[in-house]
């Protein structure tokens, strides 16, 4: 049955890598659906505290309750519901960061790579400056100055994580800009904006998609780290990093409170990375045609 399916569709990719990509896509897909539908799929209100129901273990442990599949936290809030809302925060941060840093980084990278000369010097200088900025310290300062909120975290990460976009956009643009079709477009009267957006961008976008997945995973991890340090999403919003931070006092007696968000974070970031690697291989093979 399986053999006949494979023969019919003619898959030639190594099966392990292919499965890994599918697994990554599945994880990311589930995370997206859960994030979008969070209010409809949560079994309980994630903010509702019940001090009589504190630290109930998850279903596979003794003393669990059927209405709390993953147990409750130190304030009696349903852990599954909080985890689901946490998916929302993580995905939101990931997407916002990628969009914002992508816009900044790709714009800078294309300008530097295409025009070269002084423009490129400026872009390289900005990239170097950015790499010299300690992310956590900047976040600390920003939080100290304006307080912490979801918006502040997204903005901070979005304004700081553009360096890899810029580097990749710059080098790939340099490869593309000397090709004949760019000269042909100029000879056909195309404007500069047209050449950058319609001739260059579509030919480097494959590489940028891979960067986007890596940056998204990084942003999610950084948000968790910032929230763990108390510099990220403020309570009672259920960020996974914040859940880990709040759970660390109880980890010796109720280890699941720290393990569950930790595993969720691990699985999502791994899923995004697997998808990114898979996309790189698939699209890379596509480019070689």
């Amino acid at each position, binding site marked *: 049955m399986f053999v006949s399916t494979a023969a019919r569709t003619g898959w030639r990719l190594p099966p392990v890598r292919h499965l890994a990509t599918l697994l990554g896509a599945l994880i990311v897909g589930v995370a997206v659906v859960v994030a979008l539908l969070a209010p409809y799929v949560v079994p309980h209100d994630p903010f509702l505290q019940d001090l009589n129901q504190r630290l109930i273990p998850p279903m596979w442990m003794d003393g669990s309750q059927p209405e709390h599949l993953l147990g409750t936290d130190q304030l009696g809030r349903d852990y599954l519901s909080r985890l689901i809302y946490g998916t929302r925060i993580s995905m939101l941060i990931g997407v916002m960061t990628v969009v914002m840093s992508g816009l900044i980084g790709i714009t800078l990278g294309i300008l530097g790579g295409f025009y*070269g000369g002084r423009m490129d010097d400026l872009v390289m200088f900005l990239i170097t400056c950015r790499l010299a900025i300690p992310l956590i310290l900047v976040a600390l300062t920003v939080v100290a100055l304006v307080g912490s909120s979801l918006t502040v975290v997204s903005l901070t990460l979005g304004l700081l994580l553009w360096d890899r976009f810029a580097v990749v956009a710059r080098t790939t643009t340099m490869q593309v800009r000397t090709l*004949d*079709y760019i000269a042909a477009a100029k*000879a*056909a*009267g*195309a404007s500069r904006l047209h050449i950058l957006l319609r001739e260059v961008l*579509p*030919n480097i976008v494959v590489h940028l998609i891979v960067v986007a997945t890596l940056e998204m995973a990084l942003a999610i991890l950084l948000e968790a780290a910032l929230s763990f340090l108390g510099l990220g999403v403020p309570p009672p919003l259920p960020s996974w990093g914040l859940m880990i931070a709040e759970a660390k006092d109880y980890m010796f007696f109720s280890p699941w409170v720290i393990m569950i968000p930790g595993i969720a974070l691990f699985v999502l970031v791994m899923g995004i990375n697997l998808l990114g690697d898979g996309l790189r291989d698939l699209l890379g093979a596509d480019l070689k045609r």
Partner: protein
Amino acid sequence: MTNSAADPVLSVADLRVTFGERTEAVRGMSLSVARGETHCIVGESGCGKSVTSLAVMNLLPRGAARSAGHIRFHGRDLMGLSEREMARLRGDKIAMIFQEPMTSLNPAYTIGSQMAEVFERHRRAGRRAAMDRAAELLARVGVTAPGMRLGQYPHQLSGGLRQRVMIAMALMCDPELLIADEPTTALDVTVQAQILRLLQKLQQELGLALLLITHDLGVVARMAQRVSVMYAGQVVESGPAAAVFAAPTHPYTRGLLACIPVPGTVRRDEPLGSIPGMVPRIAPGFIGCGFRDRCGSAMPECAGAVPLRDAGGGHTHLCRLLPDATRAPGA
């Protein structure tokens, strides 16, 4: 404006292109192309023929500077045009075809969308009208099933087919001047012949002024009415193609013609002609004949100013030798 033979479509006078302080790629190039005429610029790599075409289009790479007495297109001097005005002419009244059909099309778009884009840009036409025009031109350049080709990507097409697409794309807006920079160099010989025949046919039907850049004297013999032989940034010999081939007057042209094997006259045991040495690197301020180090007739006075000689009938050459003197056999 009328298009009589006396009113050339393109007229370039004393064009100079420098790359910084060290290199002068084009040194006082003049040429004119009339409606329905094919003017070939021929020369070896690095002689400045491609740079000339880019200078006319004002598409020189960064670091290059051009100056000219004039570059007139239908009497309008292109030297004075702004970048925006120039962009409006490019692809519309002046179209260009490049050497490498494999890389001249953007791999990210279908053939149809790339062709339509030019038309939409210059004619403010809708996509449907532009696609119809593209299909019509593809059929005209001999692409079978144009409707299917419009939806295909460049990588699905062969080199010859892509060059046909490039030609059709150049014709989208009914240009009056077509600049073809080595359009057949990257193609194999049978396809070369087809593309040249196609260019010739289109030129006659549309009355194009064709500026054809090539290093292949065979292409020149087949296509050109007028020919300019370039060497080290200068036109060393220019004239009606028939006259130049029948009686080349510049030693360089004679050398080039001696390199071509002609069945019947070249014997197997005799080596083909060759020109010793390399093209010199010419810096601004270079005086004298650029060919003197490789020329069999070189004299001490070749290091001085070189006169322009006229052999009659618009056939000129740049050499101290008189036209008759160079006709003596041997270099």
